[in-house]
């Protein structure tokens, strides 16, 4: 069986600024003035109100661990050689939650609620940077 490559996100006309930001190791997230809050993931209109006022702002990406799991079996063939997978949901101090992975941590040291900080993982020859997290 041929090894499956890890899926690489493909930026869209809607999300391009987010990915451009990550490639510069900056976190750009949409903000809706009428909602008075940040919005993630990128959209064309604000969720709930459909207000046409989303604008890109930079956040520092600091947050806390909302939840996680230690996947002992690969969630898909591309991760067969990447066990255990440390799948995480981080709640940004700025508000929204993001799906991510934890790095540079022993699984037994992971605690929900712990402070975490961004790790920018450049994927070679793709121009894509993934946003992962480690304990702060």
């Amino acid at each position, binding site marked *: 069986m041929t090894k499956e490559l890890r899926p690489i996100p493909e930026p*869209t006309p809607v999300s391009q600024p987010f990915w451009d930001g990550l490639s510069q190791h900056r976190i750009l997230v949409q903000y809706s003035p009428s909602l008075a809050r940040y919005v993630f993931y990128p959209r064309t209109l604000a969720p709930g109100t459909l207000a046409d006022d989303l604008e890109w702002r930079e956040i520092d990406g600091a947050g806390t661990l909302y*939840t996680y*799991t230690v996947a002992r079996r690969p*969630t898909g063939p591309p991760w067969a050689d990447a066990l255990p997978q440390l*799948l995480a949901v981080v709640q940004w101090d700025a508000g929204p939650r993001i799906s991510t992975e934890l790095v540079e941590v022993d699984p037994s040291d992971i605690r929900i*609620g712990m402070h975490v900080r961004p790790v920018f993982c450049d994927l070679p020859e793709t121009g894509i940077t993934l946003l992962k997290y480690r304990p702060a």
Partner: protein
Amino acid sequence: MTGLRGEAAIVGIAELPAERRPTRPPLFTLDQYALLAKMVVEDAGVDPACINGLLTHGVAESAMFAPATLCEYLGLALDFGERVDLGGATSAGMVWRAAAAVELGVCDAALAVVPGSASLPQSQRSSPSGPNWYGASSNNYGSPQAEFEIPHGNVGQNAPYAQIAQRYAAEFGYDPAAVAKIAVDQRTNACAHPGAVFHGAPITIDDVLGSPMIADPIHMLETVMRVHGGAGVLIANADIARRSRHRPVWITGFGEHIAYKTPTYADDLMRTPIARAADKAFVMAGLSRSDVDAASIYDCYTITVLMSLEDAGFCAKGKGMSWITEHDLTHRGDFPLNTAGGQLSFGQAGMAGGMHHVVDGARQIMGRAGDTQVPDCNTAFVTGNGGIMSEQVALLMRGD
């Protein structure tokens, strides 16, 4: 409150025995649908000509126009054709849509049938498509999952459900033995239900906790076994119900709520959509939680059952684990739950897994549950659950 009047009933049921490896010859989903349709019509003892409604999740042979394709194939002209796309909540979602259509007079009798075997005839010309490990996630360009979930491996069912369970544990604590008891009690039920894939294979709490950890805190025996099967029901108006062979199972209440696609983006991950759906169902039916004689709760994982019991109002939030320990959830017990084994022990026949619970509830009210029959079973509560606890449906069924 407006809603169903309880004048549409499940009049026929069918569920194929669960098989780990198919012994039946491969059938296209069109033919699986036809077989199950024949079974529910014969079970009801009614003339197939009365059927003028049909609900489907879709057929593998046609990406589009599923109701019309089935209408033509079955030779049944339709006044109501519906496609329901709610994952594991599809079947329960079909039932209330059919009941509403019947009560409105849109149709007289409607098939709600879900093929459940992945064993399909294979073309000699084109090779079968490879296994789709994206599961319920879409890897199409522009899909939020393709961009923000799949690249991190946040895909499939095990890990996302485990993330919900971990958050639950952080907020309310976690008693692995209590959660494992759900699987154990359901296995007891499966051992009394011959169609179940794990019939004849009892387990203990130690077995569950000793099975391999899949994604913390979910053990293998807290996940479902994929099986080949299929299930369906026929829903009809009161005139047909009175002429049918079995005790009619009136649909008296329902609720449906869709909250998100991926748990990461839930407003409140710890209050699952069944809370709102169940409240609406009980109010509509004019029933209390204590009126329920048997429950069939969608059980893709034990954590789903735990949170559904709490959020549907059978026990207080965060108290489900002690509640489970204090109650006997077997068919002999004080809270009969998933009396045919549930998907954990009957097996999950793909999309038909949701219909397992509908059939389980209806079978109990019809009084046809054999060794697992709950005495004087007049009210059943049934749930469907799609995605990652993201879309859920509650049903209340009553016998006269």
